[in-house]
C-alpha cells in the first residue's frame, strides 16, 4: 500500500519548545489512523505539521509525495484539516463558506450541496456562520473539508461539541473514507469511540510516538510495539 505520510525524526518547535521531538510515523493510503495521547503530547502539532501549517525544524517529512522541508504548500490542495477552529467566516452563510472553499480548491460547486446534505446542513444553508450552534459549526467545518474532496483528511478532536446525531454522521463519514479513496488521521481524546473507527493507533507522549497498536478494539496493551 502506498505511503501517504512519512515522518522520520520529525521535530517541530513552538516558541523554542519541541512540540514534536523526533516523531517516526508512516500512514498508508486509505488507512484510518488514530493518534492518541495526553494533553500537550503533540497531537495537534503533528496534524499541523502534516498540513504544512508549522515548519519542520529537523528530520524529514513527506506528505502526498511533497517534501515538507522544501515545499510546505504543495500537498494542500489534496488535504483538508478539521481543527479546533472552523476556518470559516462569521458573516458568510453556510452555503457561501462552502462555495468559497470549493472554488478555492478548484472543486465543482455542486459538491457543496452534496456536502450539506451529507452533514445535515441543508436546513441552515442560508444562515451565517456567526449564528450557528457549536455543533453546526463543527459539521460545517467537516462539510468544508469534504467539499475539497481531499485524499488526506486530518481530524483534530472532531467529536468535540457534536450531539449524538452529529457523532453518528461524523463516524459514518470517517468509516466511509477508505472506500472513497481517502486516508484519515484522527486525533481524539474519545479513544474508545475513535478506536472503533481506526485501523491502527499511534500514541504520542512528550512529542514522540511511543506506541502503535495494529487494530482497533482487539489489541491489549501487551501487544503494543514500543519504539525507543
Amino acid at each position, binding site marked *: 500500500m502506498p505511503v501517504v505520510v512519512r515522518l522520520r525524526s520529525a521535530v517541530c518547535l513552538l516558541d523554542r519548545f519541541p512540540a514534536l521531538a523526533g516523531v517516526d510515523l508512516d500512514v498508508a493510503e486509505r488507512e484510518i489512523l488514530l493518534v492518541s495521547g495526553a494533553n500537550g503530547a503533540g497531537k495537534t502539532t503533528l496534524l499541523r505539521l502534516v498540513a504544512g501549517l508549522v515548519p519542520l525544524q529537523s528530520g524529514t517529512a513527506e506528505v502526498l509525495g511533497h517534501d515538507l522541508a522544501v515545499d510546505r504548500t504543495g500537498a494542500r490542495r489534496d488535504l483538508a484539516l478539521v481543527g479546533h477552529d472552523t*476556518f470559516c467566516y462569521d*458573516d458568510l452563510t453556510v452555503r457561501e463558506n462552502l462555495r468559497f472553499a470549493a472554488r478555492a480548491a478548484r472543486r465543482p460547486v455542486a459538491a457543496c450541496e452534496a456536502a450539506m446534505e451529507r452533514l445535515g446542513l441543508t436546513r441552515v444553508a442560508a444562515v451565517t456562520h456567526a449564528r450557528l450552534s457549536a455543533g453546526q459549526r463543527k459539521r460545517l467545518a467537516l462539510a468544508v473539508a469534504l467539499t475539497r474532496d481531499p485524499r488526506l483528511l486530518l481530524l483534530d478532536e472532531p467529536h468535540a461539541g457534536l450531539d449524538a446525531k452529529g457523532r453518528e454522521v461524523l463516524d459514518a463519514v470517517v468509516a466511509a473514507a477508505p472506500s472513497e479513496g481517502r486516508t484519515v488521521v484522527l486525533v481524539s481524546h474519545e479513544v474508545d469511540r475513535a478506536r472503533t473507527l481506526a485501523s491502527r493507533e499511534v500514541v504520542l507522549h512528550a512529542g514522540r510516538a511511543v506506541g502503535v497498536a495494529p487494530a482497533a478494539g482487539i489489541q491489549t496493551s501487551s501487544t503494543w510495539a514500543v519504539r525507543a
Partner: protein
Amino acid sequence: MTLWREALLVAGKDLRIEARSRVTLYQVLPFGFIVLLLFAFALDPDRGLLPRVAPGLFWVAVLLATLLAVSRAFAIEADNGARDGLRLSGLDGSAVFLGKAAAIAVELLVLEVVLGVGVVLLYDVGLHSAAPLALAVVAATIGVAATGTLYGVLAAGLRVRETLVPILLLPVVAPVMLGATRASEAAVGQAPSDAWPWVALLVLFAAIYTTMGMLAFGPLLEEA
C-alpha cells in the same frame, strides 16, 4: 483557475463580508467624514484657507480611513482561524494579495466619492479638470491599498497589529500623500496640466507596491 479568477474570488468574499457587516458604511465612512468636519471647524475662521488646503485635508482623511479599512481586512481573517483556512485553501499567495487589495481599493473608492462630495460642500471647492483628478484618485487608491495589504499581512499575526500598522504604513505612503495632494491641487486649480507628473509618480508607486505585494504576500502569509 487563473490568478485573476482566484483574486476575484478573494475580493468577492471580502466585499460580501463588508456588505453584510457594514463596517465600512457604519464606521469607516463616518470616520472619514468626521475628520473632514473637524478640519472645517478648526480652520473655519479663515474662510479663504479651506479651499486652498482642501486637497491635502481630503487625502489626510482618506489615509486615516485607510488604516481602518486595512485593519478590518485582516481582522476578518483572524476570527475562527480563517487565516489558516486561507493558507490551506490552495489559493495562490499573489491572488490572495490582489484580491484583498482590490477589495480595500473598492471600499476606498466609495469612501473617496462620498468624501469628495463632502469636500465640495464643506470647503467650497470647484473642479477645473476631471481627468487628471480621476486618474490620480485611482492610482493613489491602488497604491495605498497595495501598501496597506502588504503591511497588513506583515503585522497580521502580531498582538500589536492595531498599533503597528499605522506606524509602518503612514511613513511609506507619504509619497502618495504628496503626489495625490499635488495632483488634486492642480486639477482643482488653474493649471491642470501640472497634475500629470504627479499622476505618473502615483502610477509608479502603485506599480512598485503591487509587484512587491504579489511577490512577498504569500511567504508573509505563511509566517503570519
